[in-house]
């Protein structure tokens, strides 16, 4: 009927919940991770097996605080030493499951609690000790989990897992314990999930049975657990490590009644099951809301990096456009290249002569062209490198200012990556190559070929590179003074060769190419930040998928709950 459909939907929901990344250190992330693992654990340990096999024996977990006498109670109920009781806290370190020998088959496989191995011998780590005993009625199994509140953290986790897997909780507390905060957190959860519950108030001083029971009952009622059966066991001398029969008679009667009445048992099982199934809505929604928070935070972190690196690119763009890359060394080398400042100053009107002069100069001493190229490179290098470093530094600092970012930041993140420098050099050289190609290509279908060859493609490319940096903003006072207008000359040289409009186009293309190259490099640098976020943060698609899976599960649950005869 609808059982299999519900189980499939639940399985899909579980897969969706289990696979989503949830590791961004936003507030409450720890709680969300715990809630997620509890949820996945409960689906695996309890919900799926119980949905598929409603007729399996009822699992009764005798849970409670350390020292509350859980093990003694179980031993007394079974009438044999099946689990160790004692004075040392915590006593039970590995869970014990006691059932009728006929029922052992139900529990031997990993139908329920697949994460725990089965053992029949002594207690072992991460295992469930299986004890068949004929005094346990068939159709009912008693589980003695570890304590919920001792210093041993694994005990607490395991206890939570086992309680979530039980059909019925027998919650054991004592007169000294019943107001402890930890058990009440668990009881609160039980109330929310409408888990079937009985409470045993153990070790009550005989004179206080009435008073304490009343107090506890009123506390239970406050938590909307007023329906739970409450059994007070007065503090009595143990006989042979067992509670005298008279003291636990009411509890035993109640349990025997359940064991004898398959219908009542079924009702208990279904109450807990439907309660747990219905609780998934709030739990998964809460998780999804938290995931939204993580997605948002991740987007903000990525956005911070994006913004800083975009600013870096704008900085490089501005630096290139304002022509400042030309200054200093480049100008000096350029002067070497075209001749002395005195000479070039006279050249403005006599471009042809300059070309002749350069040609002779150039053919004589080719390395001069290389020297200029080198200066451009190191200036560009400095500009881009500083921009990239600044972006990395600022992004790191901004990330550090929030917990989610602080957890991600690694030591070497506040500078450009190690391979950035070499890559940058390589890319700039490649760009210079492309500029030369550009000149060659442009020169190919122009009548200036002859003139171009006389000037040398290298020299022309160089002039174009300089023009890229100098064209838009022109020259500042400094350059005019220092270089005597050589940059202006260089542009004129170029214009004489290619024509004014062509130079503008060429320069624009070369500059766009350069910015694209730099952008590519900066994007790779930014990736270092994105990768960190991606590794821990959920994606919006996964959250949507989770919500879809939840909706699918809820519609399946709706039709499952409407089945006739389910709720008696």
């Amino acid at each position, binding site marked *: 009927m609808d059982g299999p459909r519900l189980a499939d939907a639940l399985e899909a929901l579980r897969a969706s919940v289990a696979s989503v990344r949830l590791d961004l250190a936003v507030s409450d992330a720890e709680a969300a991770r715990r809630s997620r693992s509890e949820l996945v654990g409960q689906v695996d340990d309890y919900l799926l097996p119980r949905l598929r096999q409603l007729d399996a024996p009822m699992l009764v977990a005798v849970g409670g605080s350390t020292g509350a006498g859980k093990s003694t109670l179980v031993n007394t109920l079974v009438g044999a030493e099946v689990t160790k009781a004692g004075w*040392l806290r915590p006593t039970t370190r590995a869970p014990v499951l006691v059932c009728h020998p006929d029922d052992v088959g139900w529990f031997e496989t990993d139908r329920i609690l697949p994460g725990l191995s089965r053992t029949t011998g002594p207690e072992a780590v991460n295992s469930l000790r299986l004890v068949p005993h004929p005094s346990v009625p068939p159709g009912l199994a008693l589980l003695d989990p570890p304590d919920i*509140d001792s210093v041993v953290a694994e005990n607490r986790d395991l206890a939570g897992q086992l309680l979530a897997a039980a059909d019925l909780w027998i919650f054991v507390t004592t007169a000294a314990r019943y107001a402890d*905060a930890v058990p009440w957190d668990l009881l609160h959860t039980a109330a929310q999930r409408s888990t079937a519950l009985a409470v045993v108030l153990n*070790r009550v001083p005989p004179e206080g049975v009435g008073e304490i029971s009343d107090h506890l009952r009123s506390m239970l009622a406050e938590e909307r657990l007023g329906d739970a059966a409450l059994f007070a066991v007065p503090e009595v001398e143990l006989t042979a490590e067992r509670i005298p029969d008279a003291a636990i008679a009411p509890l035993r009667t109640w349990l025997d009644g359940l064991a004898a009445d398959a219908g009542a048992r079924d009702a208990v099982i279904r109450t807990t099951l439907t309660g747990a199934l219905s609780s998934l809505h709030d739990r998964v929604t809460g998780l999804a809301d938290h995931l939204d928070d993580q997605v948002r935070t991740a987007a903000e972190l990525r956005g911070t990096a994006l913004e800083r690196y975009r600013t870096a690119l704008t900085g490089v763009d501005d630096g290139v456009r304002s022509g400042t890359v030309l200054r*200093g060394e480049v100008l000096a080398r350029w002067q070497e290249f075209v001749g002395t400042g005195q000479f070039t100053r006279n050249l403005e009107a006599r471009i042809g002569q300059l070309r002749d002069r350069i040609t002779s100069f150039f053919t004589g001493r080719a390395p001069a062209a290389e020297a200029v190229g080198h200066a451009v490179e190191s200036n560009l290098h400095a500009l881009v490198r500083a921009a990239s*470093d600044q972006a990395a530094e600022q992004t790191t600092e901004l990330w550090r200012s929030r917990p989610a970012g602080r957890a991600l930041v690694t030591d070497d993140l506040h500078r450009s990556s190690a391979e950035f420098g070499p890559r940058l050099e390589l890319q700039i050289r490649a760009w210079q190559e492309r500029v030369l190609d550009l000149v060659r290509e442009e020169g190919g279908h122009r009548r200036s070929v002859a003139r171009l060859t006389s000037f040398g493609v290298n020299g022309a490319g160089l002039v174009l590179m300089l023009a890229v940096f100098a064209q838009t903003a022109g020259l500042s006072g400094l350059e005019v003074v220092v270089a005597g207008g050589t940059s202006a000359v260089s542009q004129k040289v170029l214009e004489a060769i290619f024509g004014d409009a062509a130079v503008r186009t060429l320069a624009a293309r070369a500059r766009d190419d350069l910015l694209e190259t730099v952008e590519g490099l900066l994007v790779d640098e930014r990736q270092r930040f994105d990768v960190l976020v991606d590794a821990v943060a959920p994606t919006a698609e996964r959250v949507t998928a989770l919500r879809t899976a939840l909706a699918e599960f809820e519609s399946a649950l709706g039709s499952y709950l409407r089945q006739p005869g389910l709720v008696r």
Partner: protein
Amino acid sequence: MTLLARATDESGLSKRLTALDRVVELGADRLDPAALATAGALSGKAAERLRLGAEHTVVALAGTTGSGKSSLFNALVGVDVATTGLRRPVTSTAQAAVWNPDGAAPLLDWLGVKRRHHLGDEGADELSGLVLLDLPDVDSVKVDHRLEVDRLVKLVDLLVWVVDPQKYADSALHDRYLQPLRTHADITVVAFNQIDRVPSARREEVLTDLRGLLEREGLGGVPVLPVSARTSDGLPALRTRLADAVTAHEASVRRLNADLRALADELGPTCGPSATPAVERADRAAVVGALTEASGADAVALAVARTHRSRTRAATGWPMTRWLARVRPSAATRLGLPGARLSPGEAEDELVRTALPGPSAVQQARVDTALRNLVDRTTAGLPQPWPSVLTRAATGRREQLPDLLDRAVAGADLGLGRRPRWWGVVRLLQNVLALVAVVGAVWLLGLFLLDWFRLPEPPLPDVDVWEWRIPVPTGMLLGGVLVGLVLGFLSARLGALGARRQANRARRRIRARVEQVAADAVLEPVSAELSARTELCAAISQLRGRR
């Protein structure tokens, strides 16, 4: 007071509290705000507690609900002061019993404990001076109980944790209180109450289990006293323990010492390795180099050289053409360099801006990179917050750097006003030569006119130059012009030499001033942070003191 002063002194507490004040002072803007707040609070608490004196020793009975804190309290007091009961939790606010209450009121006010029970004459025993607190529980559903305990646990001098056979291994007690307070083993006592409930054969086993648990938490030396409030078993031992603490009058000092140790543990990792990094010569040079470049020193040097050359020309060139050099404004004037328009001796004014365009994007980038390298190298191996702190120190005045650099250039003595003495000599010589040439020319013109008008020529003196015999006026004209041109050429060469020297000097002087800027704006702040770190870390390690 004297008792306290002696105990304070003997344990080195006063020295360590001075160190704490240094930590608070130096840690501002450097340490993590939460840790700094802890340190500040501790400093305030220590001052307050010491002011209140060691006449009284504050002992708190703390623990889980139902462990019998109040019963134990009553048993120690000897009167049923505290309410005990079956319903849990019973005690909701702390109450105090004071043995010999003279002068204890300010202490209790400071503790914020309102319910007080004074033991007058009946308290005149070995516990005289004891302030015993009965605290609420640490583990019940009532959260405000925990908050009250958290508050008082920070203030009391001696902590007696009351546990019982059921709850001695509870996470609420161990993970929230005992484990975090492992640094306070000195002032911690565990009273294992309700020991009468454990069969006497099992008692030792249970006590050993608890001792092992405490040892694993780092509380190995803590005494575990089995007691029973109901049967009074073990009470004398507990009483003796309390009496020892009260008569020694040093529990409060030990408490503060433990607090300081805990703080030192918390702050220790922020210091990192003990080696003190320093600003290396190479880093200093790199920063100064980048700043010098950004100041435009090269451009200025070039302008200075050019100006010198053109001034040399203007002063020593051939008189017929040297006015040309004066028509154009000098490079130095166009850059608005200091001294460009001054006569020698006038003071430079660094508040006058130059016309230099300021650092270019590339120069700024180089400066930024140099600053980053400086920070990276001085903070190599240091944990946060030091890289951030030093980055702030190095770049704090980054925005002001262009202006500071401009001032450095504006205030530099570039030697532009200086006029070499040889200029005057050459100028005089040039003038004389020009005069000679003019006289020769006029003479020749006279001769020409005489010839034109067919007048008799006066006798013409000759000079012998090697083999040639040259008439004096011709010699004067040609010689004056020729020697003047040669002299002009030579002095231009000399001027170029001088220009180079002057350019170098200008560059050196700008660099010297830029070094000052680098020191003021970058290196000093960085060094200051580094020495602040050294001092802070020394203070933090002093907190620990001798154990």
